[in-house]
């Protein structure tokens, strides 16, 4: 890859940030309204949070300006 390229990991980071924010946000909303299904084990919160954290890591670590 050329040094000025946007790495695939940055795209993945952006995607995970979007997904993590949406899913975590919905999980928190569910928690607030008490509509969580029993078998979910609050998965939206911790899985959404995990996706968001990974997304932030990849998004920041591989942001294009670092490689430019």
């Amino acid at each position, binding site marked *: 890859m050329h040094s000025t390229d946007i790495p695939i990991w940055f795209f993945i980071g952006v*995607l*995970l940030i979007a997904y993590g924010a*949406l899913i975590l946000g919905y999980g928190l909303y569910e928690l607030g309204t008490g509509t969580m299904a029993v078998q979910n084990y609050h998965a939206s919160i911790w899985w959404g949070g995990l996706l968001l954290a990974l997304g932030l890591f990849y998004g920041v670590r591989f942001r294009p300006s670092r490689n430019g």
Partner: protein
Amino acid sequence: MFGLVPHAISAAGSPSAAALFAGLGAPSLAHLRPLDIAVIAIYFVMVIWIGFYLKSKANTSEEFFMAGREMTAWIAGLSFVSANLGSLELMGWAGSAYQYGILAAHWYWIGAIPAMLFLGMVMMPFYYVCKTHSVPGYLKLRYGQGSSTVAAVSFAFMTVLMSGVNMFAMAEVMKIVLGWDLNFSIIVSSLAVAAYVALGGLRSAIFNEVLQFVLIWGGALLVPILGLVETGGWTGFKARLAQNIANGVTPAGDYTHMWRSMGHFADNPMGIHWTGIVFGLGFAISFGYWTTDFLVVQRVLAANSLRSARLAPVIGSFFKMAVPFIVILPGLLGLVVLQNSDGSLMHLVGENVVAAHPGAGLHSYNEVLPLMMVRYLGPGLLGLGITALIAGFMSGMAGNVSAFTAIFTYDIYQPHIVKHARDEHYVLVGRIVTIVGVIISIGAAYLVMNAAGIMDYVQALFSFFISPLLGVVLLGMFWKRATRQGGFWGLLIGTLTSIGLWAWVKADPSALRYVAISPDAKDMAENMYRALWSVSTSVGVNVIVSLFTKPKPLSELTSVVYGVTPLPTEEPVPLYKNEWFWTAIAIVIFFALNIYFW
């Protein structure tokens, strides 16, 4: 199974494509909420963004067809394993795990790992050093234009057909799982694939495969985790399963061991024997697919150095070993956690039973993964799971189309139609062929829609070529004496052997006892032994013909044959970057898994 399933491996025994659809229940399994739709829409925006971004990186033929040979070991490795991680494969093997137990993991471990490591450590130097653009390209260097053209034409034809089958498969699954219209799914997915492959070439296809890989793990990993939490871990699962079997609510069987019931064909529900698993699946089919199918090898050829090219399949092998966690385990967990609306244990059944009782609310084995997703995944997460399935289908289509484009342009168009043109001409041809490939795929999708039985024939067609090709490539790579005529006749007679055995069993099912050497053998065993016979025939014929014909001078074999190819000396690297070190680790884990689940 078909589509993204490895062609040869799919033919080796996962549920048939026609059966997969025949059995899926009529009402849609899941209902998406706006949040789920948003998750899916974001994915489509992302892939188109990537396609447009990469357009400027695909100006030369080397960039368009080979991704500029700039892929790191990680990207090539994830793409390599992702090209084989399709949605129908996930669904089909999860269903097989529900039906047969952990035996299904053979297709992920012995049916993949040894071949992947062999490709990386032994074969990759020859593919890489000779700078071939494709597997038929290697055949041209080693055996001449004849064998290369035969392999290229058959591969191009099958690949584009498979892409269409894939497209139809995705549309059908989306209709059944979500209730989406078939035409809508076909048009949207094909437009997206055509756009990002025509724009960005192989690099775009590879990027999307890596994206798909992340999505599949992000969308599917939660299911087994929550399933294990609910059952109290692996031990708790086994206890609940044993209780269900003792109570007679689950059919008796050994669901949690891989090798104990392999002593005789009649001892296991798949009707297979360890010799078929080890030599048929573990060698003839697996090596054929992982080392000679251009669809997967193309990903590794795009690596940025020989070390990366060798490391890529090794990296892929670790993830391949982990795939049963998101495929086999959900199928097994479904045996004890899936419930009907009245709280009783749900019993999934065969496709024929579902078809015979329409409206009875029955679900087939192949629906176990969507059912588990619906059970555990709430809004947003379900959208992520569905996006993972869509991404799997689309990247599979993109893989087929990009491989078709490279093979057609390099191995058919360039040597036979326009031999000496400017580089830009071939890139333009590549972009046009991509669009044409997608259009043919759409035609094939509608053809299959009107004649579902064709799908299983397409699978069989792939299996005819893969194993004989393995024999020809292996002998060509490791035996200097193999001749042009030996390669051609080995490939031809090996293929005819495979077709002949298949037709024999098709015409007379009792012939299976001869092909698989046991009256207790079942369909899956036939595929394994047929592959074994065809690779043996291919090698045998190649050896005999070669001994009676004139070999190429050694000077013409430099860089394509073991013993006359000077391999470049690689810079010493720390142990943690050394491919042999990671290969050794992969071998240890491979044996540990098989022993643990013995």
